[in-house]
């Protein structure tokens, strides 16, 4: 394959070019309620070429090898057109030439597990909620996604890497009278099929919670001091803060770029945030990004002071900051963009009980249910929560959506717990979906959170 890719690149007369070929293999099993609605394994493939010429960088994706010439012609023209229309030529930060084949270590390679074994496992999990009265529906599935990547640059890099992701989970819905409640359940990872085994307790626990939600009270709108559990605090690290550590987002937002200057004190003293995709056995793990740059552990915030950023080669040059290896594509349909790898709030010393004691009166909100940001403002849903009175958990609450301002919230994080948890499944949408997006945090205590209510 490398020879074929090199041959295609040889036709390109440019300052720099790269090509990625990927074969993507999916195994998908889906249940809706008792019914199996989808099962099968498939394979698709395609190419992405990027060309830097005369100060312009452009990309083209194509699936038929016979389209290579047309595709390259348009990428060349577009690169030149960009170069002509911008004042400051695009340049790429220098990186080492790499020739390596890297296959991650697997604890049970999902490619070697039969589809009937996968089916039986999902069926077993799906049956756990369905046995209960008042569970009206489930959407439970298994997916493994295998990206077999070949990457070649005009600088001489040749990299072969596989990304193997497994996940099991979905949604459980309960109903009583006219009231519907739902909850998400999931497990998975980047290092083998074992990640989706032994999830019976997880499914049973979530089933219990979604039934309890039928009795929970809707949260009142207002402003509360809140403890966020690791899942929800991780979403804050990812959505509210993390996206603005992605250099391609703030590169073109001058006001935000100014605020996010390295060295700025943005958070409270207790706040330390890092992106470390080199952590083995985590969902976010990879070795090389889709520009052939080895990913580095990148400290983003230390004691509330901004100290690093996630980069592509293009933005590392533009910002004159170190390369970090965070330019990643969803698959062969896309040119890479800057993505977080494994981003998390680092653990401190207080226990969860100490956080509760410190909160006294407020809310404890648990597990993310979607989040979105627009600049400094963010909105997240939580799956469920509890009222906290005199430092103790009281009644269960539902319909929780919070919103806030990034800068204010970073200052309002007054305590960080000692119990870091990283997510096992992901799905960050930034034009493309990143199923390896991994985030986490310990429990954190935040003052003045706006609650939408219903």
């Amino acid at each position: 394959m490398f020879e074929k890719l090199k041959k295609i690149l040889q036709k390109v007369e440019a300052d720099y070019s790269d090509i990625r070929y990927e074969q993507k293999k999916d195994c998908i099993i889906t249940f809706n309620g008792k019914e199996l609605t989808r099962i099968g394994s498939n394979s698709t493939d395609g190419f992405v070429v990027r060309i830097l010429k005369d100060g312009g960088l452009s990309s083209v994706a194509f699936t038929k090898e016979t389209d290579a010439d047309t595709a390259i012609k348009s990428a060349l023209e577009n690169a030149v057109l960009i170069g002509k229309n911008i004042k400051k030529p695009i340049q790429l930060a220098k990186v080492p030439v790499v020739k390596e084949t890297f296959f991650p270590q697997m604890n049970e390679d999902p490619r070697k597990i039969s589809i009937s074994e996968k089916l039986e496992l999902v069926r077993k999990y799906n049956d756990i909620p369905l046995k209960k009265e008042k569970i009206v529906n489930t959407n439970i599935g298994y997916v493994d996604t295998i990206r077999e990547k070949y990457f070649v640059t005009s600088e001489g890099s040749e990299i072969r890497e596989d990304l193997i992701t497994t996940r099991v989970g979905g949604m459980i819905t309960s109903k009583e009278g006219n009231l519907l409640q739902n909850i998400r359940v999931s497990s998975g990872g980047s290092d083998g099929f074992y990640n989706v085994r032994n999830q019976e307790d997880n499914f049973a626990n979530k089933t219990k919670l979604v039934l309890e939600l039928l009795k929970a009270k809707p949260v009142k709108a207002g402003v509360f001091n809140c403890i966020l559990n690791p899942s929800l605090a991780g979403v804050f690290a990812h959505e509210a803060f993390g996206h603005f550590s992605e250099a391609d987002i703030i590169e073109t937002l001058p006001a935000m770029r100014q605020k996010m200057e390295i060295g700025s004190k943005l958070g409270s003293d207790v706040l330390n945030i890092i992106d470390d995709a080199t952590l083995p056995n985590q969902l976010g793990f990879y070795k090389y990004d889709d520009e052939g740059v080895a990913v580095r552990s990148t400290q983003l915030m230390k004691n509330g002071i901004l100290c690093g950023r996630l980069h592509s080669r293009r933005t590392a040059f533009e910002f004159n900051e170190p390369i970090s290896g965070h330019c990643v594509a969803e698959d062969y349909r896309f040119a890479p963009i800057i993505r977080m790898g494994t981003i998390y709030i680092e653990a401190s010393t207080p226990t969860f009980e100490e956080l509760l004691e410190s909160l006294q009166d407020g809310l404890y909100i648990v597990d993310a249910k979607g989040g979105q940001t627009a600049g400094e403002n963010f909105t997240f849903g939580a799956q469920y929560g509890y009222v906290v009175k005199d430092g103790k958990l009281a009644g269960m609450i539902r319909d929780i959506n919070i919103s806030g301002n990034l800068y204010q919230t970073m200052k309002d994080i007054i305590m960080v717990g000692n119990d870091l948890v990283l997510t096992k499944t992901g799905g960050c949408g930034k034009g493309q979906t990143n199923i390896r997006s991994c985030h986490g945090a310990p429990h954190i205590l935040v003052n003045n959170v706006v609650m939408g209510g219903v």
Partner: protein
Amino acid sequence: MEKLLEMAKKVCDQAEVYSYEPSTSSVDFENAKLYDIESSIHAGVSLRIIKNGKLGFAYTRNILNRNEILQNALDSLKGKVEAKYDFPLTTEISNLKTYDSSIEDLTISRMVEELSRISEQFQAKTDAEISLYSYKNIEKIRVMNSKGTDINSKNGGFGFYLALIFPGGASSISRSQSYFTFKKTPQNLVNEMIEFYNRSKKVIEPKSGKMKVLWMPGSMHTLTWRILSGTSAKSIYEKISPIAEKIGEKIFNEKLTIHDAPLDDKYPWARAFDDEGVNCNPLSIIENGVLKSFYYDLNFAQKLDKKSTGHGYRTSRWGGEAIALKPNPNLTHLQIKPGNASFSELLKFMDKGMIIEGAMGAHSGNIPNGDYSVGVSPGFYVENGEIIGRVKDAMIAGNVYDTLKNVVAIEDTLHPSWSGRFPAILCDDVSVATKK
């Protein structure tokens, strides 16, 4: 494709081959400067087979090996996914305008020139951070099946998305439009955006409480998403629709009429047939507040003993590839019938309240139940019928089945937005939470 269908027919009861070939080019301006140009040329094929009432499904990008895709489909039969429906015989389809050959001649440099022109105007008249995007798409869809259906369509369109971002906030005023082929951006649209932006620069912090709220087309997905969920045959079958038993009942204010208009070829992307080869037809969902119909694909129609309404689409809420998705019920050409009020009349009716220009978090919360709880991104605060500034940290919450009972007035114009074309809708008594 023909050969694949022939091979599949020999080994199963029914077969369908779907092919999809999109090609796209896009131009992206960020911070008022050309930032990126991307293009893609894709092709792919998806195969569905039915044997003894069970479904086999497979897809590929390149039919290099017909036996392999057929074998994948046959292998998936073993899972015993139920499929008691029949693929349709569709020989005649509506003759729609879906493509204008002049789009082929549209150059990327012409698209760059146009965005530069708009960018200069915005720069001259606002202090916004300017983000502009335009694209040209051409796609070919073909559906063949063992009943003898062999239909295809070529669709094309040019469109743009313009955003004026409030510095630091990244919340924005945005407008989009699409045409069959290149058109200069209408000057009134540009002027309207500039005026909106300049009128809402001041940040206002209103008090929490119930107030009148004007849903703009750009935030309408907060409401339509929940209606789509409630009226989908899939939700009816899964018993998660709160309006399953309410056909013929008045569930919304009588001013509200909602329908799906796939054959409306005044705009690009009209469809004569859905992704399973069923003829598309207009479908009334809500008429004067009364729930008229749910929407069906072949699979859920059979399960519920109904007929497909031609709404089987290979789409999902979160992207995904058409060839890799099985058809599911979806409304892709949703329209809300315009009312009588001009935009400025709506502001007068409003007197005091909030305009929801954009909404954050519409995808979270208890969607089947109709609940929403979204952040404004941004909201504009109105007093004495005039915009006096914008709101940043506020949440709007409610239930769609309550909110749309309280419609005060509907705008007289349709605007394109995510999943359809909508007028602005003014509702009373919506809960707004702020820090005050």
